[in-house]
């Protein structure tokens, strides 16, 4: 699909500013999201190409306003609901619970 993920050659995104001494992860939750990839893929819920496409389907505003591992988390949520491993209601309930605990 011709989406905003296909950035090559597009202008207007501003300068690239690499962090000096960039850490592998910027937060604890990123480690957990990273760690989910192989086990969930190995359980047969998706292949790498489906995973990439789930990120492409995010929609331009979400894609551009979220970080790398948020893209991954979005792909897990999308595919696990689409494949029937989670229901949309279960996911929403858990998100609500986490939001309340964080208050």
């Amino acid at each position: 699909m011709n989406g905003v993920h296909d950035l090559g050659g597009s202008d207007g995104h501003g300068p690239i500013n690499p962090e000096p001494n960039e850490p592998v992860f910027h937060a604890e939750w990123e480690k957990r999201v990273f760690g989910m990839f192989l086990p969930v893929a190995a359980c047969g819920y998706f292949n790498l190409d489906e995973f990439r496409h789930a990120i492409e389907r995010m929609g331009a505003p979400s894609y551009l306003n979220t970080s790398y591992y948020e893209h991954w988390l979005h792909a897990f949520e999308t595919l696990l609901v689409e494949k029937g491993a989670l229901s949309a209601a279960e996911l929403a309930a858990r998100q609500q619970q986490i939001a309340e605990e964080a208050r």
Partner: protein
Amino acid sequence: MAITAAQALAASASDGGSTRLEVDVAPRFAAGDRIRTRNINPRGHTRLPLYLRNCVGVVAADLGVFVFPDTHAHGGDQKPQHVYSVHFSAKDVWGREGGERDTLVVDMWDDYMDPV
């Protein structure tokens, strides 16, 4: 037979998660062939960058047979086919803004190209 998570982890650690396939598929191209990339605009997944549609390049190497992402992302058909390293002159890709001496080297699946 379904593979276990442990087997998948071990395989991924040994080859970086490569989608190379050990099957015989006839290559449509060889090193030195001039190709034109297809002007495809699929609604689904593709690894053919937008800026490389309808561009002429030269095949530099045949990298072997791999899973085709465009079908694998939608139902899991592997559609095994050759992937080639293809050289594009920056001028051919970017027009007059392309660097005079720059070459873009891109891995291209068989289904992305036609002979010139």
